[in-house]
């Protein structure tokens, strides 16, 4: 599908951004936000029609969208009701995704993005950048952590969807109830589970938070399917 394109720099750029655009949509959909099917699997022609200048270059300012969590996701992320907190609120909210245009990323750019995300009441912000953040900018993300979760992805990292690779097993996020049931079933403490790092590529893809558990389902030659559980740290 890409072979019949003219091979100049501009259309390469368009294809790159189209791939990243698709992957980021798939990512948001896999986290169970509400997205329409035709938004996720957008064709290159449509992408070019909608998001390109007449001269063929991509209009990055238009590459942004938001999504609301679906009901099942809200249910998954709601802590179980307790006596002191009979009506718990889910700890997830709308998500904001933006492709940033700057050539370099320092603290000020990050602050602008975080401010925008927080003032518009988004709970999660995903920024897709063409170049890496400066070290200070990355550290400064931690300071806004309790207001909104800001995630950064490089365009280069989103060119392919890693979860579609055959060597990447399926990761399923467990809800809080399922996690409690799992710990009860195996009589485990949380710390006795195997662990997965928060910066693990799949954990980043799913936007795992510390303390969440993923079920990893592998294909096994001897057992058919084999499920293991990992705690995000």
């Amino acid at each position: 599908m890409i072979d019949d394109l003219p091979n100049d720099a501009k259309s390469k750029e368009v294809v790159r951004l189209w791939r990243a655009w698709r992957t980021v949509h798939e990512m948001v959909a896999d986290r169970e936000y509400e997205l329409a099917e035709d938004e996720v699997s957008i064709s290159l022609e449509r992408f070019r029609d909608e998001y390109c200048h007449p001269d063929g270059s991509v209009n990055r300012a238009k590459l942004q969208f938001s999504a609301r969590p679906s009901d099942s996701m809200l249910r998954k992320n709601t802590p179980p009701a307790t006596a002191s907190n009979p009506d718990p609120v889910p700890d997830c909210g709308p998500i904001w995704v933006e492709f940033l245009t700057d050539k370099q990323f320092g603290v000020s750019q990050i602050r602008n993005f975080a401010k925008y995300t927080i003032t518009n009441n988004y709970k999660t912000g995903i920024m897709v950048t063409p170049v890496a953040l400066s070290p200070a900018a990355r550290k400064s993300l931690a300071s806004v952590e309790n207001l909104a979760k800001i995630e950064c992805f490089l365009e280069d990292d989103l060119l392919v969807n890693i979860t579609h690779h055959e060597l990447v097993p399926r990761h399923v996020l467990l809800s809080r109830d399922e996690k409690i049931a799992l710990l009860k079933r195996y009589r485990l403490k949380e710390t006795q589970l195997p662990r997965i790092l928060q910066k693990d590529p799949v954990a980043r893809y799913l936007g795992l938070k510390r303390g969440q558990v993923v079920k990893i389902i592998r294909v096994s030659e001897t057992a058919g399917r084999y499920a293991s559980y990992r705690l995000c740290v």
Partner: protein
Amino acid sequence: MATGQGGPLKGILKNIGDAPEKPETAREVAIRHATLLENRKQLESQILDSLILLSEYPLARDAQFNASSPAASDIADFKANVRLFQPSDYDDLIEERNVNELCGYTLCAKPRRQTGSSGEWKITSSGEIVKRKELEKWCSQQCARRALFVKVQLNETAAWERAGIPDIQIDLLEEDRSAETEADRTARKLGELKLEDQRQAARDSAALAMERGDDKFGPPVNKVKVTLKEKDVKAPSEFPPAEAGNSEDHLLVDGYKAKIPEKQEPEI
């Protein structure tokens, strides 16, 4: 055991569970460690704040100030803020300043050098081949020297281990004093010397207290109480005063004269 004596068997392992820790002491220890961690976190965020602050410096950008003679207030701020940096933090600062399109040296207001858009390597005027990224960090070679002069004074030790030590001072390269007369210079040196003497005592004691762990994070918990006791030593017996002119001096060993037992007369 084989000895057959009464009483319970004794393990050879160290007795750990002998005195179970009281919940209060456990809590105290936990809180102490938590405060330590909290302190580290605060220091780290403080370092980040000063990094962000310094990435916009210098504040005084009048024509009279430049990188070799910056405003005194800027110098003071820079020295105060950079004090706790590790060399890696300083590198982050340089990068952050470059993102702001400034020269990597904190007290230089000039924009950083631009050497065109292509090529990873560049040839300098002196004929050296250097990475373009390295070259574009600074506005000039002098600023690179000034910045690295500061960097080599920074310490790899973690910030929380030296936060309280007052005698970490950062100096700048060439503080320009060509306008000063001889008398001025002598007066300044004398003043510094006097001040130094007074401060040194205070600083030394503070640094010593820091090293000992008399820190500000609450009373130290597990300190050993030390009481000094003089050991009662038996003094070696004194030599008997040598008598002047004693002819048997040469026979004394440690004041003792070996006696040859007199031959006893065989009793008949």
